[in-house]
C-alpha cells in the first residue's frame, strides 16, 4: 500500500503534449478515477505512473520517494488492461501465477495463492482453461486475479470494463468496489464513463486536453463543477447550458433566454461583469403551475425517473421528474429553476463563477 504523488508531470510525444503539468495526490488506500474523453491523456498518465512510459519532466512519488527511474515491477504496481492482455498460450492458473513464477516462488506456494485468488474471484472451476475458452466477464476476472495475486502497492486500471456489455459492466463495478473495500489497496482507475467514475470513486480527477480540470469527490464534481466542461461531462443527461442575459426589473432579477425568462434569487447571482451562461441539471428544472410557460416536446420515461424536455422560442431545457410523468408532448406547462441548482459560467473563460450559496 502506498500513496502516490504527481508533481508537474508532463509527457510529450514529439510536438504533441499528452500530459501537461499534472499535479495530484492519491492517498494511501484511496480509490481515484481519471475521467475524460478519449485522447485527453488519461491513459498516458496511467502508463507514466505504471512506469510503462517515461515522463518528459516532473516527478512521480510513491510513499514519498521518487520512482521516475524504476521499472513497473520495481514500483510494485499491478495493472489491469483494457483488452485484459491475458497470455493466450497459458491456462488461467498460469496466467494468474505467472508473476510468482517469475519471482521463483516455491511451486506449492504458487498453487496455494492461485487457488486463494481463484476462489475470491469465483474462478475455481476454470483454472485449467485457456483465455479464449472464457467469456468476457471471466477473462476480466482473470485479469483482476493476475493483479490481485501480487498484493501490490498500487492498482492501476485502464478502462477495464469498456469491452463488457452494459449489464456485466455494472456488476463488475460492484465487484471492483467490494474488492477495494476488502483489500484497501491504493487504486487509480481510468475511464471515459462518467457514471462509472461517479459510482466507484473516492475522488475523481477530470482531465481535459492533457490537463487536470478538477479533482474532487463525486458530490463535488457533480454539484460544484469548476467549469462548463466538467459540468457537461458529468451527469446524464448532461447539464443544460442556457446562453442568455441577466435583467433587473423592479428589484427582481431575471435570466432571459429568447422569449423566456426565469427568476433568479439575488443570493445566487454573482457579482461578475462579463456575459454569463446559466447551467442547470434536470433535477433542478421544476415543472409546475408557476413559472415560465413552455411546451413539453419530448418525454423519456426511464422508470425511476422521467425526463421531460420543454421548449420555447429560443431555448429548451430538460427536467427530471421522479417516477412516471403524465405530461404528454405538446402539453402547455410551467417551469421554474430551483435556486440551489443554478450555476453560472463565464461565457469567455468557461469557468464557473462562484455565488454565495456555492
Amino acid at each position, binding site marked *: 500500500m502506498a500513496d502516490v504523488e504527481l508533481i508537474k508531470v508532463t509527457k510529450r510525444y514529439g510536438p504533441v503534449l499528452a500530459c501537461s503539468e499534472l499535479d495530484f495526490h492519491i492517498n494511501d488506500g484511496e480509490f481515484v478515477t481519471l475521467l475524460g474523453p478519449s485522447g485527453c491523456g488519461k491513459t498516458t498518465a496511467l502508463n507514466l505512473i505504471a512506469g510503462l512510459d517515461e515522463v518528459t519532466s516532473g516527478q512521480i512519488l510513491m510513499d514519498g520517494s521518487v520512482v521516475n527511474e524504476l521499472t513497473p515491477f520495481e514500483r510494485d*504496481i499491478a495493472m489491469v488492461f483494457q483488452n485484459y*492482455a*491475458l497470455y493466450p498460450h497459458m491456462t488461467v492458473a498460469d496466467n494468474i501465477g505467472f508473476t510468482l513464477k*517469475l519471482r521463483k516462488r516455491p511451486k506449492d506456494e504458487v498453487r496455494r495463492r492461485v487457488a486463494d485468488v481463484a476462489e475470491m474471484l469465483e474462478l475455481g472451476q476454470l483454472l485449467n482453461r485457456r483465455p479464449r475458452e472464457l467469456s468476457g466477464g471471466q477473462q476480466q476476472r482473470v485479469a483482476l486475479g493476475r493483479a490481485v495475486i501480487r498484493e501490490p502497492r498500487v492498482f492501476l486500471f485502464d478502462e477495464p470494463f469498456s469491452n463488457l456489455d452494459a449489464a456485466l459492466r455494472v456488476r463488475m463495478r460492484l465487484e471492483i468496489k467490494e474488492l477495494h473495500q476488502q483489500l484497501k489497496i491504493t487504486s487509480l482507475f481510468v475511464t471515459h464513463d462518467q457514471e462509472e467514475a461517479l459510482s466507484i470513486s473516492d475522488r475523481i480527477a477530470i482531465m481535459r486536453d492533457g490537463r487536470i480540470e478538477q479533482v474532487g469527490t463525486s458530490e463535488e464534481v457533480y454539484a460544484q463543477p469548476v467549469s462548463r466542461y466538467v459540468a457537461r461531462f458529468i451527469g446524464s443527461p448532461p447539464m443544460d447550458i442556457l446562453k442568455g442575459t441577466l435583467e433587473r426589473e423592479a428589484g427582481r432579477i431575471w435570466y432571459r433566454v429568447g422569449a423566456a425568462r426565469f427568476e433568479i434569487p439575488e443570493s445566487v447571482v454573482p457579482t461578475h461583469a462579463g456575459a454569463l451562461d446559466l447551467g442547470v441539471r434536470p433535477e433542478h428544472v421544476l415543472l409546475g403551475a408557476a413559472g415560465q410557460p413552455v411546451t413539453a416536446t419530448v418525454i423519456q420515461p426511464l422508470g425511476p425517473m422521467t425526463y421531460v424536455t420543454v421548449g420555447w422560442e429560443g431555448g429548451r431545457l430538460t427536467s427530471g421528474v421522479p417516477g412516471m410523468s403524465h405530461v404528454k408532448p405538446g402539453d402547455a406547462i410551467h417551469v421554474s429553476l430551483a435556486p440551489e441548482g443554478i450555476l453560472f459560467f463565464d461565457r469567455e473563460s468557461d469557468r464557473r463563477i462562484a455565488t454565495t450559496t456555492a
Partner: protein
Amino acid sequence: MGLVIFTAWTLGPILWAVISSFLPQTALTSTPPDLSPANLTLANFQAVLAGDRSLVKGLINSSIIAISTAAVALVLGSAAAYALARLHVPGSNKILLMVLATQMFPGIVIIIPLFIVISRMGLTDTYIALIVVYLSFILPIVIWILKGFFEAVPLELERAAAVDGASVLQTFRLIVLPISLPALFATGVFAFIESWNEFFFAVILTRINVKTAPIAIAEFSGQYTSLYGQMVAAAVLASIPVIVLAVVFRQYILKGFVEGAVKG
C-alpha cells in the same frame, strides 16, 4: 475457368514428371511417348537409390544444410526481428533497409567474388560455406517476415509481462515466442524449402563431398545421354520432403502469411 487453366498449367509438368518417373527410358523417348500401363515400372527409383548412391548422399547433404540453415535463420532472425520490432534500436529503419538491400543483387553478380573468397578461405565444398551463403539471402527475408509477426503481438501483452516482472528477454522467451509458434513454423519451413531447392550457389560452391540433391539430380543429365526417367524419379524423391512439410504445416503457412500480410 481461369483457375482451371492455372491449375493445369501449374500441375501439368508435375504430373508429367510423376508419370515419367514410372516409365522406362525407351517409352519416354519414343514419339509419341508410350504411356501404356504395361510399361509402368519402379526401375527408375531402384536405379537412383542404388547405383553410386549420389542421390541418397545428395538428399542427406541437402537435409543437413537445409535444417541447419532454417534453425540458424530462426534463432538469429527471431532475435533480430524482435529487436527491430519492439526495442528502441537506433537507426532501425536504416538497418531494415540495408537488410532488404542485400536482396537486390542477383546471385550472378556476387557469385564470382563469393567463390574467390570462399575458396581462399578453403571452404569450398563444405557445409559451412553453403549454410553461410544461404543464410545471407534467407535471413533477411526471415527477419522481415518475423518482424511483421512480432509487431502483430498486442503491445499490452508485453506490458502486462513487464508489470508482472518479466525482463525483456523473459518476455521474448516466455510470451512472444510461444505466441508466435505458428509464425516460427511457417518461417522455418520457408527457410528450409528455400535452401533445399537452391541450385545456383550449390553448383558453384560444391565439388564432391557436399553436393546437394538438386546437383545430384542434374547430374543424371550427362554429356552423351540424359537419363530422363531416373532424373525425374530423383526429382520426385527430392520433392517429397517439401510436399510433406507443405501439407503438414499448410494451415500454419497460410495463417502465417495472411497475418504477416495484414500487419507487416
